[in-house]
């Protein structure tokens, strides 16, 4: 990567780097929280920053059909931070406080839900997002604006039938849908290596069977990722047709806290690669690098201090938002929750 030229401005290169670090620092803080008992479970995206930050930069952010609809999986923190999510809110979800803006203490960390940015609930069940995205795609195809649908998921998950549903519905002759279909391929599903359970063909090849254009990208290279994403997004936005990207990425802390969340040796670290590159290009010095990281670490630490003071959700709140009108959920009420 270091050798490749990029057409991105120096400012943008720096911005990308900063956001990658911010997101790594946050994830490492979340891992620490889990290890010290400040959060029950961790899952997240360290190793995908070089792909996810450019994605966040290229999204048409806003609410409603004129903006991009986002069906994300649980490794997307770098995209969300790039879009403007605050560290503290992620930490709130990690600590399942009442202040968690995405699920009020109900869901695991990195499970975002943001209406103003069309961020549909991040899913825990693998691959259902590939079925849901059909619907926002249909709505956007009819709306004929510039908004597109973007869906992400892992390599192992493509074995689920919804992946085919997405390819098929998106490629119906004359009814094509404006969906950018992304698969981040880290070559693992928990402990199962891709080699063991997948065919010898790559995932991008699945697009061809449906007449869908596709690309494979080195997701550890932020500049290549930016270029490939930009091209694909432009095509989807303009042609109103699907595009499939397979991004080769790393899984730097293993699957999740359930598998120990320890640093995995031998995987490419996109951040240290980028540092080498930017240092070589004299865009950043060792000192800059330290300062940037330190700044985010301070931010994360302060946020954590605040979150630890915040209240846990009220037991009665389990009946909130079962239905739009709470009355509808009060037909049954467990004996132990006296009203």
């Amino acid at each position, binding site marked *: 990567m270091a050798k490749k030229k990029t057409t991105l401005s120096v400012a943008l290169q720096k911005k990308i780097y900063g956001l990658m670090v911010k997101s790594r620092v946050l994830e490492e803080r979340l891992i620490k929280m889990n290890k010290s008992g400040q959060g029950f479970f961790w899952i997240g995206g360290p190793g995908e920053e070089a792909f996810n930050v450019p994605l966040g930069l290229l999204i048409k952010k806003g609410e409603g059909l004129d903006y991009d609809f986002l069906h994300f999986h649980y490794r997307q923190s770098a995209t969300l931070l790039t879009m403007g999510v605050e560290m503290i809110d992620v930490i709130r979800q990690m600590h399942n406080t009442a202040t968690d803006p995405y699920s009020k203490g109900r869901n695991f960390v990195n499970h975002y839900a943001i209406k103003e940015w069309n961020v549909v609930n991040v899913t825990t069940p693998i691959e259902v997002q590939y079925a849901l995205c059909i619907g926002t795609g249909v709505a956007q195809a009819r709306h004929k604006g510039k908004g597109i649908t973007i869906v992400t998921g892992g390599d192992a998950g493509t074995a689920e039938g*919804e992946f085919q549903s997405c390819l098929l519905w998106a490629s119906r002759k004359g009814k094509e849908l404006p969906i950018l279909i992304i698969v981040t391929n880290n070559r693992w599903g928990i402990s199962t290596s891709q080699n063991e359970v997948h065919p010898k063909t790559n995932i991008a090849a699945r697009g061809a069977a449906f007449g869908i254009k596709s690309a494979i990208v080195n997701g550890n290279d932020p500049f290549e990722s930016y270029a490939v994403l930009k091209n694909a997004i432009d095509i989807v936005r303009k042609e109103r047709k699907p595009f499939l990207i397979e991004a080769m990425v790393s899984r730097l802390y293993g699957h999740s806290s359930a598998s120990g969340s320890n640093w995995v040796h031998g995987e490419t670290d996109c951040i240290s690669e980028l540092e080498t590159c930017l240092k070589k290009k004299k865009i950043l010095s060792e000192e800059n690098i330290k300062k940037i990281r330190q700044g985010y670490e301070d931010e994360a630490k302060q946020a954590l201090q605040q979150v630890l003071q915040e209240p846990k959700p009220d037991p009665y709140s389990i009946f909130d938002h079962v239905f739009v009108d709470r009355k509808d959920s009060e037909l049954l009420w467990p004996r132990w929750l006296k009203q």
Partner: protein
Amino acid sequence: MATMAQAIRLALHYGEENLGVKDIFGEDVGPPLGGVFTCTQGLKNAWNSPLDERGIIGCAIGLALSGCKPVAEIQFSDYIYNTIDLLKYAGNTLWRSNGIWPVPMVVMTPVGAGIHGSIYHSHSFESIMTHIQGWKIVIPSNALDAYGLMLSAIKDPNPVMYLIPKALLRSQGEEKIPGEPENPKELSKMIDAPLGDRSKWKPNWPDMQPLSIPLGKARIGMEGNQVTVISYGRMFPLSLEAARAVAEEGISCDVIDLRTLYPYDVEAIFNSVKKTGRVVVVNEDTELTNYGEHILRRITEDCFYHLEAPPLLVAGANVPGVALAETLEQATVPQVSYIVDALRNIA
């Protein structure tokens, strides 16, 4: 008067004209067929999906999230079982996001036996469906309710499952739907597609009017004071018939049509049971972990000291399906005579 199939079609027409419904879709829902039971014939926003139930429900959720009000059909509830995870997902999306993402969508699907449909066109679905949280669930037993419940389902901001008792689709309603012409033949000429080539056919819609049947309100089909009969869907007219039969023997029944299975009308149920002290719940779903057992549990819990006899469930036999031969179907799902027996027994 309109048949139930026509009533559903008229309600969907009302929905696309007045309630913002832009997508009525599913397998064979669009032209030329307009649904295997003609429920979607001639609707301007009806379209054919791929043969992919998971895609259909996924698409509906996505449409709902994007602000549309989709009505998706699963051709037979027998084929909805590969989508339960997605139905659960639709039902927990608002809750998972703590109120951020409502999912206003309607799924409709035919249920129950009675058309010689054999194993895979006779399934009931209410027991599993009522165990899925976050959904409202309705099931009409006549054309007028079919119309009114569909309008309420479309207007509701939550996911709503609209179960269609398929054996009643051709039965004509006794009451006129607001807006339908006096003469059912006239209605048929206006909105039923011709046989043969339909490529140039267009329906001539009557000017349909709103009708409010609030979700969660039962209907008392017959009043009495000795036995409470609680039913819905295809089993409701059979229950009514049974109650009329035993009325001649001096057994007086309250016959309740639940109409909405969730939220159900707990007041109507408890009031009646407190009056009669005897209760029979009738449905055709298989009897093990059956929705009727929930209703009975609520009753035994809250009205125990009013009960004068063991409450009864008349439901489908606990076998893997409703078989094709008539002898077998009749042994499997409740018949009028079995309900009559239960009423005699308990009274």
